[in-house]
């Protein structure tokens, strides 16, 4: 084929340029360490790299949230431990005071000590985090969640009300996982079922302030079948809608002690005498009394699935009341203990009443402690879960990093070897071009 002079020059220059372009490209890759300089180098990998780096960043955000959640829960946990310690010390004092040989003045001194404990407890309940947000206020973290309000009769001490809410402060700790990072004050301090968590027992006749005259003491009772209790409670045709409850009333006729179960409910605002709902039964101290009705006003006999034990010797006319549990705050329990300790014990009858009441408060304190422990173990479980999530997050991060590296990063060995090869090619092209351009017939003319 005929070759023109311009073809020789054009081809020479073109080849040198192509080599130089390759060299510059390789140099660029080596300098930046990136395999892809622009998405067009590998469009699929570029798209994947974008998605992956977002996933990696999101994972890092979750990890940061996990740390934050962990910090917050640890703070809550330390406060829970403080509440636990405090309640334990209160409980110790209550057990100590159940020794009825103590003088009124000793009880007064312990009452004063418990009053200080009460203030301490209120302080913990109103504690704040580093940002000044109240820890136990739910969503309403701007204002103290617990405040003293007017006393609710028959108590004389100011009651403690909860002004926060049940809001959970959530953090996104995983793609599909949000983690509550707080404990609501309601759950921790307020929503504690009294008694045995199903019903409470107390001494004394319904609608009467008179104390029992006998030495009978009632325990906190036991629930054999909660479903039976609940069904019976809801299905029983109470004579009124307020003050639902049962009363075990004793009659002593001719040295024979018998008891009978009464319905003590009344319509709101109106008083009705308790209505007998069982036959008279013989009483043996220390033997369990099954709660059930045999003379219902309308329907068949009902079993409440629960029992109580009354020990000692009840006198004629003594009564013991059983009421469905309602929630009683830790504050109220402690206040009631303090109030009980401050009232002097005058007679043997009062001493029996004191023992009965103190046993009731002890049950409530145990409920409160149990509740704190439950919340604590919940927080512990969350912390454990966060640890697991953290470990997963860092493993996933390494995985993402590796994949991203495979997509984006340069194989230096390959690139350096390519660079050297290209360099040789360029030098050869330059040398041969110079040689061929020197060949001209005009040199010999």
């Amino acid at each position, binding site marked *: *084929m*005929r*070759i*023109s*002079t*311009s*073809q020789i020059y*054009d081809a020479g220059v*073109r080849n040198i340029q192509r080599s130089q372009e390759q060299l510059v490209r390789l140099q660029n890759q080596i300098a930046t360490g990136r395999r892809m300089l*622009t*998405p*067009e*180098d*590998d*469009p*699929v990998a*570029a*798209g*994947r790299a*974008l*998605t992956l*780096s*977002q996933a990696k*960043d*999101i994972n890092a*955000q979750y990890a*940061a949230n996990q740390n*934050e959640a962990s910090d917050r829960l640890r703070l809550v946990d330390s406060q829970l431990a403080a509440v636990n310690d405090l309640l334990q010390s209160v409980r110790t004092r209550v057990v100590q005071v159940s020794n009825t040989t103590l003088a009124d003045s000793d009880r007064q001194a312990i009452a004063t000590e418990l009053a200080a404990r009460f203030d301490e407890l209120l302080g913990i309940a109103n504690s704040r985090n580093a*940002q000044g*947000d109240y820890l136990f*206020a*739910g*969503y*309403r*973290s*701007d*204002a103290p969640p617990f405040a003293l309000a007017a006393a609710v009769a028959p108590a004389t001490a100011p009651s403690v009300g909860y002004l926060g*809410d*049940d*809001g959970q*402060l*959530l*953090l*996104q700790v995983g*793609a599909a996982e*949000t983690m509550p990072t*707080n404990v609501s004050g309601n759950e921790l301090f307020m*929503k504690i079922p009294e008694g045995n968590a199903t019903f409470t027992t107390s001494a004394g006749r319904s609608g009467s302030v008179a104390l029992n005259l006998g030495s009978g003491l009632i325990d906190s009772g036991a629930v054999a079948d909660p479903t039976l209790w*609940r069904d019976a*409670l*809801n299905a029983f045709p109470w004579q009124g*809608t307020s003050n639902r409850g049962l009363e075990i009333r004793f009659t002593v006729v001719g040295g024979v002690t018998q008891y009978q179960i009464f319905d003590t409910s009344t319509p709101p605002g109106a008083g009705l005498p308790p209505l007998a709902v069982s036959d008279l039964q013989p009483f043996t101290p220390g033997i369990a009394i099954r709660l059930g009705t045999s003379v219902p006003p309308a329907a068949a006999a009902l079993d409440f699935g629960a029992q109580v034990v009354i020990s000692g010797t009840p006198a004629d006319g003594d009564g013991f009341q059983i009421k*469905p*549990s*309602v*929630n009683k705050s830790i504050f109220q329990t402690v206040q009631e203990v303090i109030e009980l300790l401050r009232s002097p014990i005058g007679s043997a009858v009062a001493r029996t009443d004191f023992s009965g009441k103190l046993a009731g408060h002890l049950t409530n304190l145990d409920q409160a402690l149990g509740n704190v422990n439950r919340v604590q173990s919940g927080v512990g479980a969350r912390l454990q879960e966060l640890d697991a999530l953290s470990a997963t997050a860092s493993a996933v991060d390494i995985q993402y990093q590796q994949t991203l590296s495979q997509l984006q990063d340069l194989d230096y060995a390959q690139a350096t070897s390519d660079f050297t090869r290209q360099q040789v090619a360029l030098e050869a092209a330059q040398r041969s071009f110079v040689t061929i351009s020197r060949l*001209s*017939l*005009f040199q010999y*003319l």
Partner: protein
Amino acid sequence: MGTGLIGSSLTGMSAAQLGLQTTEHNIANVNTPGFTRQRTIQASNTGLLSGAGFIGQGTHVSTIERLYSSFLSEQVNRSQSSASELASYAAQIAEIDNMLADPSTGLAPALQEFFEGVQQVAANPSLLPSRQVMLSSAQALSARYQAIGGRLEQIYADIDGQVVASVASINAYGEQIAALNQRIGVAEASSGQPANDLRDSRDRLLLDLNKLVKARVTVADDGGYNVFIGSGQQLVVGAEFNALTTVASASDRTRLVVGLQTALGVQEMPERLISGGSLGGLLAFRRESLDRVSHDLGRTAASLALTFNAQSALGQDLLGQSLLTPSPNSFAPTFFSLAPPSVLANTSNPVASPIVSAAFVEPPPYSGNFYTDLQSSDYRLDGSAAGVTLTRLADNKVWSAADLTALNALLAGDPQGFTLSASAPDLTGASYLIRPTRDAALNLTINPAVATDPRLIAAAGPIRTELGKSNTGLATISAGSVGPGYPAAAAVASVPITLRFQSGKLLDFPAGVLVSVNGGAPAAIPLSGLDYQSGDSITLVGSATTTPPSGFTFMLTGLPNNGDTFVISRNSGGTADSRNALALGQLQTQHTMSGKAASYQDTYAQLVSNTGSKARQIQVSSEAQQALLQQAEASRDSLSAVNLDEEAANLIRYQQAYQAAAKALQIGTSLFEAILQLGS
């Protein structure tokens, strides 16, 4: 005999001299672009008849010809036209390709930082600094959208400028080709010889014209070039020349297109008919890639704004304001501000045509998360006596209806993310271009109210739930959420609402409220109450039903006792609540686009990947075309370009021919002198 000898020698000398001149012309033009090497064609003179036969009378040069092949030149023109088209396309697309994926100019990092800001608020909703961080990252995101959108607009403007310049150059080349046609005709008619160098100039102009646009040539009988571009549009016919011009498109007045100057005025040339050359490359880039990128980018911007706003409206700000707050209030239900889709009326619409406007469809009612149905396309609305027709320009899908109301109803079943309305019903003869997404990136800003007061970011939920204080049962109530249109539900079911459990039934629903259980059809609750079932999700929807049911939603689990109550109330003072901020943050990974099929980031990654693929495809084609062009040029140059060694040989050849002829002349002269000496 002597004169014969001298005469022959003289013809040989003059032929050699012409050969030398032609060779020198070739050597002088070795570097002239478009030069075709020339050579002399020699022929022997007719012999003189004598008794001894025909005596040779020397030589003459019959013509000087170009070593030219119209076939090879045509091949170079074709290849050049395609190569220029692809090179101009490649240069343009490389620019946006780099911009989209670059870590400092791309959208991906800004999007990520924005959602990190949202997470900050979710973690610390009551802290003003964290709200400020979210606001700043939102402003950075909006600035990034505007910067990329602005750069794309700049590229549109640059293309307009280049189209104008290309058309001017095409006109200049056309005019010169027409002038050369005339000069060549005159020159060749008078001499009967080819006007080689003028023809070279004309071929060179034709090649230059092909760099701008694909031009087809037919050769007339007189050797003149007739040049056609596009679909056989005459640019040059003999000495006549028809100018091209640029004109704003009637359907899209923001876009400059190529037009033809005719006696009746300027006529728009269909864009698809202009191919090849850098002009063809520019138009193809604008049509195929730039529009696509603008649409996709705008689609993510619009979807982000619409879904984020829809979720924001369901929140409550740090001042405790929500949609439930009685007016006047300063609650800001939208976080982003976004202008409605632009609608351009065709400039040739009848004078009294109504104004058509478009509006984004609010993200569909709540079911999991918000999403949009926007598509990456412009739409054309045509009105006729029979009704209206909407055409999706990306794939020419057509919706026809009697009027806009019926059309909107059609679109409700096949959602495109927008609805249309007109200032008057009669659209006959009018045409409109609807651009739902093209300008969205440029128009994305932060709601100025929120921008100046970060407390207005709606991070909390507007309602909260609680159990009655004296509940004895074990039932719990979930935190509760609200759905779109919940203020309408609140009008009937005004909070606080206290529901009571009694004998297996939920009682005390507000009068007139409709209730949906587990997303079922909402129904009125009889006086006897709603059957209680643990784990049921209950939605109070107000008095009007929506699909899916939307209003106040909560879930009751566990067993309540008779008389237990559940309270739904306003979330007053809920400054530490971040439920809505969490929902906003979750939008990042949820399928919020393309009718619930892709996330923002998926869509953007797809955009980068698509643009990269296209850039790669064009780059590969461009390299292949460049190789084809080089082969075509090599074939042409092999025939037509000058080789200096060859010319050096020719120099020697003609020099020696000249010297030999001169020697013959000398011998003839000496013979003649010998005869003269005989007489002396």
